[in-house]
């Protein structure tokens, strides 16, 4: 018996629709639950004041700043390094044993659980290099952790730029570097930005590796060598040690809302780049 192709088409479409709705629905439910549980304890003063009594009372200002510092530093370290590697692999070298080895290394790094990065960061940065539990140790550890993501997403984005655009740029008297900066990177920007967003998400959401390397001090880090706490770590400790579930959910709410805000911001920046280069 032959099934009506229109019928199968419709079936598949509905099924895929359903999956998409399910994914979005799941996100909405998670945000909704956190919102309900967290909103009563969340206020502007909660975000702007210091915690008291281990976080049982007061706000989460140092944790917010700790999160911002850690994420910003790791992105500042990892983006030039990762993007540079991706540019080297795609534009400046031919496929060879060396590139195979680099790619294999990147793939392997991507598959390692974050706790291993934490352990490495602890042994190497905290102990061996004597940086102690500090923002710097944490940021360097996060840098290594997110590097594979940035390299892989950037490489894919750069590879997707049509070869013809490079040819045209060269034919107009551009050097390889000018072509890379003026033509390839703008066209690849949306993909590269996606990788950076994913990486921010990973750094902001990480707990174990951060506790190992940045510690969990509740004070506001005043220098790179100070310990500090991110919102995710704060949430983890509040919940895990039963200090205050209310404050934990309020922290989670701030965390989730800021991640959403960063994503929306990135989306708009991306659209402006696309508008300029299309």
């Amino acid at each position: 018996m032959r099934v009506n192709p229109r019928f199968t088409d419709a079936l598949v479409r509905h099924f895929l629709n359903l999956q998409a709705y399910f994914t979005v629905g799941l996100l909405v439910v998670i945000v909704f639950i956190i919102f309900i549980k967290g909103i009563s304890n969340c206020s502007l003063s909660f975000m702007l004041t210091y915690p008291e009594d281990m976080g049982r009372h007061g706000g989460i200002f140092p944790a917010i700043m700790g999160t911002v510092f850690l994420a910003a530093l790791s992105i500042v370290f990892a983006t030039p390094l990762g993007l540079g590697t991706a540019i080297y692999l795609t534009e400046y070298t031919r496929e060879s044993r060396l590139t195979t080895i680099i790619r294999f290394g990147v793939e392997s790094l991507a598959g390692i659980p974050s706790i291993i990065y934490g352990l490495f960061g602890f042994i190497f940065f905290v102990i061996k290099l004597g940086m102690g539990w500090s923002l710097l140790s944490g940021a360097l550890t996060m840098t290594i952790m997110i590097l594979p993501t940035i390299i892989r997403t950037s490489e894919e984005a750069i590879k997707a730029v049509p070869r013809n655009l490079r040819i045209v740029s060269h034919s107009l008297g551009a050097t390889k570097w000018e072509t890379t900066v003026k033509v390839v990177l703008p066209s690849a920007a949306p993909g590269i930005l996606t990788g950076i967003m994913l990486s921010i998400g990973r750094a902001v959401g990480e707990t174990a590796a951060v506790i190992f390397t940045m510690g969990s001090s509740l004070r506001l880090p005043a220098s790179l060598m100070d310990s500090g706490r991110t919102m995710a770590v704060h949430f983890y400790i509040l919940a895990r040690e039963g200090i205050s579930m209310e404050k934990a959910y309020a922290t989670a709410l701030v965390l989730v809302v800021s991640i959403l805000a960063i994503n929306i911001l990135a989306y708009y920046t991306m659209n402006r780049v696309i508008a300029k280069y299309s």
Partner: protein
Amino acid sequence: MNVKIRTEKLTVRFGNNEALKGVDLDVCKNSITGFMGPAGSGKSTLISLINRMIDFEDGVRIEGGLSIDGEDILGTSVDVVGLRRRVGTVFAVPLPLPRSIFENIAYGPRLKGINKKSDLDDIVEESLKKAVLWSEVCDRLHVSALKLSGGQQQRLCLARTLALRPEIILLDEPCSGLDPISTAKIEEALNELKKDYTIILVSNNTKQIARACDFAAFFYMGTLVEFDQTEKIFTNPRVKQTEDYIQGKFG
């Protein structure tokens, strides 16, 4: 005759495939030279030597000589980036960069360090006028170049090349995907331009060669079969093969 480009026993191999076989050719200054011949006869290969875009291909072996104004351009010490500013190229498919009309044309001049708005404005206007496109786009220079029609995009590519203020313009089958009106406009532009430039026009359309070119070269399987003034080639070819090709017997 004032020679601008000269090839001497120019031979090019891709692996074992000989794309050009000992080509001797003098391209005359301030004229349009047409390259014709069936697909695979080596026309594009010769073009890509003159602008050194061949550097992007793997496994190429080149023998013989190629010079512009008597200066060798195949050597390893040649300033390739500078060469490409003297030799502009328009490709078979229109390839606008993903940015505005204005920025497409300003791309080359900016690379040369011209950044003043008024200078760029002048260059953009002048180039678009020469490419017979100005009247169609002058009120929307900051619209994306991708929004233009195929024929307009190809003239934009010509304008972008002109903005380099090159000495030589290479056009590799620039009209192959265009309608007759756009084709006519390109030919009109080229006819004006030959006063100031040396132009090579590759075309698989012999009628276009006859219409637009002062000199015509017929290539067949990597060999330059015949080269002469267009009139002579089309009225009284020396070689039978050329005659057959022009009459559409093969190709």
